């Protein structure tokens, strides 16, 4: 038994490696990125030849993981919560195909939106797909759930969703590891048509999935991660899901006077909850994310016992939990230090000094002056910070790839010229299909692919677009005369501005590609070169 100091994300990676995984598939996204980065730096994973190359997006990652499961080996797909939307088609259907080798899908949710555009709760996806969901309360459980999750998946012939939130993903603690399991041999599914979702086969598979539900529910009742912990004060019984359990225990120094149901495996453990319902006068539900358990407990007409939680305002409806919010819900006193002095100013994130996106926005803003504001659609990445002063350069950030397609729609409505600003990694993630739409319609839009040759916002992971963008655009059918590559440096400002002006004046599709390496990765590369 070895004790390692690991982030929640890293514990998942090590748990999967020790649990006999044969392949990791992911696209970077906070707070999930460190799972794959840990594997990429793991000597052990390298020696075992475990694939760990970034995928183009979450859907391709999910599908590759399904393919490995088909071939009989254990696989994991990791993504942030909104990435699961991208992968949802494959994800939901994977519960209908079932698995051959064990399949774990990790969704890292971001309640309070520290680094995201929403705080959707992935547990609903697990419920939707009718599969078991594991939600660790600490780093040790995160390790064990990845370690044991493949067997749960194989036993019930479904993928398993492992859901974590930012705090656990990005918090470090000591983790004890277990004996290493060997990887599975390649083997084809016993039924050669298991993965063929023709309606007749899908109907049969779906019935199998429905029949499996009773066993999956029973597994929750018996799970060692779900517990009924008795307490003398039965005025209030408490349901604590995932890391909410820690905030509860923190407030009582580990000795909670109320009966507690700890939930870390779904569907909800009905046996423990029935017991709590029968023994307590009211129930408080603590869950990080949406009120999933609370809704289930309230039932249709909310009759009978009082249930307190996010839906009746005892806990805030949005945002992550913390020890203070939990204390307040329990009417426990808590101290608070001095207020933040008024002189403390906000310090929002900003584009780095020397970043190429800065030069792109300066040139674009000047070129757009004659046309007026409100016509720039953008995307997800460092360049989204262009929405803030001093640039105030962009008017949208919705989902990966939406810049190009929103510009098409707005141009159709008469907003001409419309501009799309997208990064290189986001372009290959979900921008290429939209660009094909623009080619087919010859939309009067200017697509600026601001190419810093990396996935910058998440810390500089390899970009699938590197060195390929011009050829991709040509291959999709963009007129080569309107593919303009430029170097975004301050000394080239006038020239770059003129190029963007020319393309804004062109009544058709243009792609402008400013290319300069991310300043952060450039510094890292230089340092590495000096060392060697």
């Amino acid at each position: 038994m070895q004790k390692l100091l690991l982030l929640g994300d890293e514990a998942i990676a090590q748990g999967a490696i020790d649990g006999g995984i044969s392949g990791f598939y992911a696209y970077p996204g906070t707070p999930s990125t460190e799972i794959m980065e840990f594997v990429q730096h793991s000597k052990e994973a390298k020696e075992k030849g475990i694939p760990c190359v970034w995928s183009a997006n979450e859907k391709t990652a999910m599908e590759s993981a399904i393919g490995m499961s088909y071939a009989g080996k254990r696989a994991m797909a990791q993504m942030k919560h909104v990435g699961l939307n991208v992968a949802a088609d494959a994800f939901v259907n994977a519960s209908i195909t079932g698995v051959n080798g064990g399949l774990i899908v990790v969704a890292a949710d971001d309640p309070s939106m520290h680094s995201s555009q929403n705080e959707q709760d992935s547990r609903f996806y697990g419920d939707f797909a009718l599969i078991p969901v594991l939600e660790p309360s600490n780093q040790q459980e995160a390790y064990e759930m990845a370690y044991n999750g493949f067997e749960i998946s194989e036993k019930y012939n479904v993928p398993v969703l492992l859901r974590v939130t930012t705090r656990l993903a990005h918090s470090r603690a000591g983790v004890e590891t277990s004996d290493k399991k060997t990887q599975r041999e390649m083997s084809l599914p016993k039924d050669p048509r298991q993965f063929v979702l023709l309606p007749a086969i899908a109907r049969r598979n779906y019935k199998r999935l429905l029949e499996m539900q009773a066993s999956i529910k029973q597994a929750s009742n018996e799970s060692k991660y779900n517990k009924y912990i008795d307490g003398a004060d039965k005025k209030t019984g408490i349901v604590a899901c995932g890391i909410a359990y820690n905030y509860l225990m923190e407030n009582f120094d580990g000795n909670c006077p109320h009966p507690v149901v700890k939930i870390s495996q779904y569907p909800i453990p009905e046996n423990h909850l029935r017991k709590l319902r029968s023994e307590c006068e009211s129930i408080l539900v603590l869950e990080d994310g949406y009120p999933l358990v609370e809704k289930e407990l309230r039932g249709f007409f909310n009759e009978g016992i009082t249930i307190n939680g996010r839906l009746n305002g005892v806990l805030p409806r949005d945002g992550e939990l913390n020890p203070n919010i939990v204390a307040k819900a329990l009417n426990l006193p808590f101290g608070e230090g001095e207020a933040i002095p008024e002189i403390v100013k906000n310090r929002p994130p900003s584009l780095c000094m020397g970043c190429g996106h800065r030069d792109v926005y300066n040139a674009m803003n000047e070129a757009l002056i004659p046309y007026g504001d409100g016509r720039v659609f953008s995307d997800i990445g460092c360049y989204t910070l262009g929405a803030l002063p001093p640039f105030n350069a962009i008017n949208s950030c919705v989902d990966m790839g939406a810049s190009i397609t929103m510009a098409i729609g707005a141009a159709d409505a008469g907003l001409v010229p419309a501009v799309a600003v997208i990064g290189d990694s986001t372009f290959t993630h979900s921008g290429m299909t939209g660009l094909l739409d623009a080619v087919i319609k010859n939309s009067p839009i200017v697509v600026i692919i601001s190419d810093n040759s990396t996935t910058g916002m998440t810390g500089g992971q390899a970009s699938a677009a590197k060195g390929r963008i011009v050829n991709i655009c040509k291959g999709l059918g963009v007129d080569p005369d309107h593919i303009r590559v430029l170097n975004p440096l301050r000394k080239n400002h006038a020239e770059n501005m003129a190029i963007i002006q020319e393309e804004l004046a062109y009544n058709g599709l243009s792609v402008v590609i400013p290319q300069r390496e991310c300043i952060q990765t450039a510094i890292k590369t230089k340092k590495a070169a000096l060392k060697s």
Partner: protein
Amino acid sequence: MKTDIILAGVGGQGILTIAATIGMAAVNKNLYLKQAEVHGMSQRGGDVQSNLRISDKPIYSDLIAKGSADIILSVEPMEALRYLPYLRKGGYVITNIVPFNNIPDYPDTETIMNRINELPDKIALDADQIAKDTGNARASNIVMLGAAAPFLGLSIEELEGGIKSLFGRKGEEVVEMNIKALHAGYDFAKSKM
């Protein structure tokens, strides 16, 4: 023992190195540890913090509750003030006095220093200058760690061990430079106590 520490600064200033050094020292001593970090968007020049908790008993929450932190250790003066709601009565603020000014409305240094000087329990130091004086301008974060050393519940030798564990593979010279910075900060704090 139990020490709850809020580490504060601006993205890129190296608070995670401080956290990792304390973490190594705590693990070497077989203490329990939880350390919540900030990754992602705020790392781009925004305010960042890390909640670091060490104890000889198991720790539940990854987050420190308001009014309960023993120490705010900040590598930037305005950022030290941002986390005052988390500081317990009698808790210490240990801060660098060199501003990191990357916003248009940054308050003037005197206003900030006046507010810091009003705090009952604080150690304020020019960690950048002290680091320069030790011959390693880039070690101001380790100087700050040294200044916090008397309050952490870890001995200076244990922190040296943390530095050795963390920087060991970078070579003896890097280890020595950082230990020197650690002691410079420690000596400053001792002289103010």
